[in-house]
């Protein structure tokens, strides 16, 4: 024991009883960070940060649940209030932007996997890729919004338009915040603050990113595809 390089072994007082039976809980013993934020030393075995993110995402389900319900209630405009969103959808276009967003989940997974291996080069590539794919999606949404407005469906024109823009807009804001987080990760990494031992930070951002993608699958199915 004493000959290993792990902090646990070298300072038994710090970690009295805590080596879990399954070694997966210790992704990489971190000489910098030995605290609950990263870790294995919690009652559940899930680090505080990750558990916190899971709880936040659980809460977000209700937020989007409320917005989707509202959209379903107001799916059709009252007669005479302009076009329904359903008349304006360009399904092939939105399918492509949905595909782009889905692919960004793949690049996010690759980024997490790269940083877990300590491969910063690839980590940067995949983070940039993820952020760019996110930007493409947002650009597609902006294009779609301005097209719909030019076709006569403003935010205030009908109950359906208000519900449509609010739901998809909330999702767009979530994606944008995700991009901000990715860029922040990238900047932190350039300054040398993200490394193999901080892989969980990247993973937690990844959780958020995947969640936003999953929500889009629901929105795409419910709002765009189901007639």
């Amino acid at each position, binding site marked *: 024991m004493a000959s290993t390089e792990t902090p646990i072994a070298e300072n038994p007082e710090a970690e*009295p009883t805590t080596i879990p039976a399954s070694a997966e809980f210790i992704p990489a013993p971190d000489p910098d960070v030995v605290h609950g934020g990263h870790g294995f030393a919690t009652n559940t075995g899930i680090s505080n940060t990750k558990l916190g993110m899971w709880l936040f995402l659980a809460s977000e389900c209700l937020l989007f649940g409320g917005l989707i319900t509202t959209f379903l209630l107001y799916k059709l405009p009252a007669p005479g*209030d302009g076009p329904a969103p359903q008349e304006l959808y360009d399904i092939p276009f939105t399918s492509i932007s949905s595909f782009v967003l889905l692919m960004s989940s793949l690049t996010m997974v690759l980024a997490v996997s790269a940083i877990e291996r300590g491969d910063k080069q690839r980590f940067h590539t995949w983070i940039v890729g993820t952020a760019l794919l996110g930007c493409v999606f947002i650009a597609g949404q902006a294009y779609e919004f301005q097209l719909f407005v030019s076709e006569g469906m403003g935010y205030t024109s009908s109950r359906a338009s208000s519900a449509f823009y609010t739901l998809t807009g909330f999702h767009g804001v979530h994606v944008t915040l995700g991009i901000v987080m990715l860029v922040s990760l990238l900047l932190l990494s350039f300054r*040398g603050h993200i490394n193999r031992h901080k892989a969980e930070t990247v993973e937690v951002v990844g959780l958020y990113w995947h969640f936003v993608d999953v929500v889009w699958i629901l929105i795409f199915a419910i709002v765009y595809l189901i007639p």
Partner: protein
Amino acid sequence: MSENLPATIDSGGTLALPSGVSELPDRAPRLGVFTRPGESKGWRSWVTTVDHKRIGIMYGAMALFFFIIGGSEALLIRAQLWAPRQQLLSADVYNQVYTMHGTTMVFLVVMPIGAAFANYLMPLQIGARDVAFPRINAFSFWCFAAGGLFLNTSWFLGGGADGGWFMYAPNSGVIYSPTHGIDFWNLGLIITGIASLSGAINLIVTVLNMRAPGMTLMKMPVFTWMTLVTQFLLLFAIPVLTVAQFLLMFDRLFDANFFNIDKGANPLLWEHLFWVFGHPEVYLMILPAFGLVSDMLPVFSRKPIFGYPFIVFSGVAIGFMGWGVWAHHMFVSGIGPVSVTVFSLTTMFIAVPTGVKILNWIATMWGGKLKFSTPMLFSIGLITMFTIGGLSGVTHAVAPADTQQTDTYYIVAHFHYVLFGGAFFGFMGGFYFYWPKAFGYLLNETLGKWNFWLMLLGFNLTFGPMHILGLQGMSRRVYTYDANYGFELWNKVSTVGAFTLATSIALFLFNIFYSRAKAKNLANPGPDPWDARTIEWMIPSPVPAYNFDPIPTVTHLDEFWYRKYGETEDGRLVRVAATEDVTQPVHDADVHLPAPSYWPVVTAVSLPIIGYGLIFSLWLCIIGGLVLIAGLYGWVTEPPDDPEATHGHAPGGHASGDGHDADLALRAGDPAAGSVDGVEADTDAGSEKEVTPVG
């Protein structure tokens, strides 16, 4: 390691922007704006604190401040209703006063007092050094304070909200309420919602992750259990309210059509969204008080809580079933016979777990050696008053009866019996019970008993007659009544009661200062003034900053009790250890704690600025947004732990290699570096080193 970084803790970082950044330790003024706050006394230490105990106390103090505001509004209402056709308040002002009274009492008094107890007590009850994310905890408090003050500034900026605390559409639209009151209501409660949500995440993680060794879920004190259930309710209820308020805000500020009847909107959408939030809300207001009472009754009965698993699981059951009863608020809105039947039944069912709790409390007292101290009196007050309120609640479940009761004073009587007679009586008991723990002196018992009996009397005089008024047909929210309606007598009784109630509150506030002045000549009450049962009573009063040292290992429910008492073979109670021998002595442990920070308060202050901007001028939004961004980035780039204060607690060769030992000497003031490291190593807040298998 290629990077030569000081050790950092990540546990306090934002969820949105995980950090891990640490400046080099020799650059003290971070970002050129703030130096790291280090005061332990004075206002600055309170503004920057991340200590869960101080945050709990600030929650409580702020809530009592809002309680005085909300209480004054209640007295205005009662004064207006003293006699028929009074003109003390105009109809318009009356609308604002009752709306703000309800909003203040629900969102700025009862919920935050629950948060105050949760923050202060829960980490102590589970043997933790702090909550999981200390800076987010500070942020939650400042959001609550900012949101509450923002909401109340509406009085000076064009008038308060006037749609009733549940703000039904389309009454809440611009057409019917053209002032900015409802905008303030919307934005203020969105801000306090952020406080509740971030607090919920924080406290749930704390309970699930940071319990002392040996404390399995079924060895947690009941209050901790109820906190867990409450925070889960908040976690899922708050976003629904936030959605509803965003929709209303977009309607009012940006002409959206969610509640615009002209464009075919359905006002029932608001009612559903609001009550899907609103009914879990009432349970999350009462459950913390249930938890407090479940911890106080055993102490003053000198018996363990009767049926601990039943108490716990009935609380969890209330938490689940609370999601299936919301439409009983809407029986007269035309939701159809099937819905009415279903919600009638679920509402009757939810009375069962509540009844289980009441029977458990009675059985706890049964055969116990009862001691009627003030906390015990308030606990019994809760049981009796809440039972009355609970039973009148069951009458609402009967849809035909409810149709008669809807929007009458009968409803007002019911929810005051559960919220005041239930939640607030429990909180008052909690104040008397935990006051010595938090402040190091006992509240005066004689005044406390006067406080209790006066409150019980005033409470029943105020709200008891409202049952009769309601059944006589007096509508709530109507600013006056005619002389020949027959409402006069009971309204007078009720007003007299309200002022009696106010006197009892004044007595409580007086008691705080009186006892504090008297306490200067008295000895410290010691860690355990009540011969209590749970581990928070093992540590000195007032609690030292580091809470426990060492962290206790838990083997029993009521751990502390079993360290003091055992049983003989024939089941009699015997003392096995003197209290002094099992409590933690007062000593100056050099424990490494999370460092205070300015950023939570900076981030929180940005939100009301954005709020004012949305109402008055979008330019302010830009300023608020910049403050928000600055706050978040300052937060993220500030290591959660102060490298100046650290002593290279990265165990292993790393610490000795990067010059942190100098810091160690600077901070610790303890030349015995080795022993300091030993203390520090298992004492960082946010890091429970010992793993306990769950459940």
